[in-house]
């Protein structure tokens, strides 16, 4: 399976889970900001990715929990350098370049892009 194949299947999952048009699902689209995902949709997306790709996704593996609630990781509404390190370690599939410039915790939703999902699945399937 190529990266394009993965993108196609991820797009189908998001079209189904979020009731969006397929042309809205671009690599840089963020699930929350651009595609209107709500918290429960993340559970739906995990279930559908598992089904579509025949993979098993552990709780917190794709969308880590508890980081925003930890005072070591979030101070004054911003993710601390320690928090960023933790997020990067837990989410190697996410590109933090844009987020790092202004690490407001309110912007965390924006790091979950379509590309991040494709990266995640590609790593799970060992596709370069």
């Amino acid at each position, binding site marked *: 399976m190529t990266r394009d194949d993965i993108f196609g299947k991820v797009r189908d999952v998001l079209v189904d889970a979020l009731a969006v048009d397929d042309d809205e699902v671009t690599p840089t689209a963020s699930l929350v900001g651009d595609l209107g995902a709500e918290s429960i949709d993340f559970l739906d997306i995990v279930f559908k990715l598992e089904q579509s790709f025949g993979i098993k996704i552990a709780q917190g593996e794709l*969308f880590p929990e508890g980081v925003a609630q930890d005072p070591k990781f979030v101070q004054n509404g911003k993710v601390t350098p320690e928090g960023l390190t933790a997020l990067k370690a837990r989410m190697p599939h996410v590109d933090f370049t844009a987020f790092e410039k202004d690490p407001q915790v309110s912007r965390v939703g924006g790091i979950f892009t379509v590309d991040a999902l494709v990266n995640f699945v590609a790593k799970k399937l060992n596709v370069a």
Partner: protein
Amino acid sequence: MRWMWIDRVIELQPRLKMVAVKNVSLAEDHLHDHFASDAIHGLTALPIMPASLILEGMAQTAGILVGHAESFREKVILAKISKAELTADATPGTTLRYTAFIERMDNLGASTRGTVDLFDHAHPDRGYCPIGIIDLLFSHLDQNMSGAAFPEHNFVFGDAFKTLLRTSGIAIAE
């Protein structure tokens, strides 16, 4: 039992499948306020069961199936209607049959898929005819990612649910 939209559980395969039936009765108040017209049969005001209540019937069927899997310890909340398609109306004197399957479940919640069939007592030879599919997503409320706390007692599965299960011959721990 005012807000029970299934009458009886007729099959339960734990963690897998549940089937329930609902008799649509003219004595139900909602049918006196919800009509469709049926020009073919010359009926201008035909009472029909609202689709939203058919959805609720499936939510109760699938919700009990999901709740039963963890012995009703989890507060199972309907979180999302993934898909709902109904192709026919349910009128008084018909029986709805809800069949729900657990598709995927973990400690955060479960997804279910379900079919709705209709039995018309005026045409018993036709048997149960498929009239729709309803796929749902349930959340286990206490496992929500925001960490919000909810009351200790399980307010989702109250006395009405317990009575229904008991009258359907399904044992539940009190």
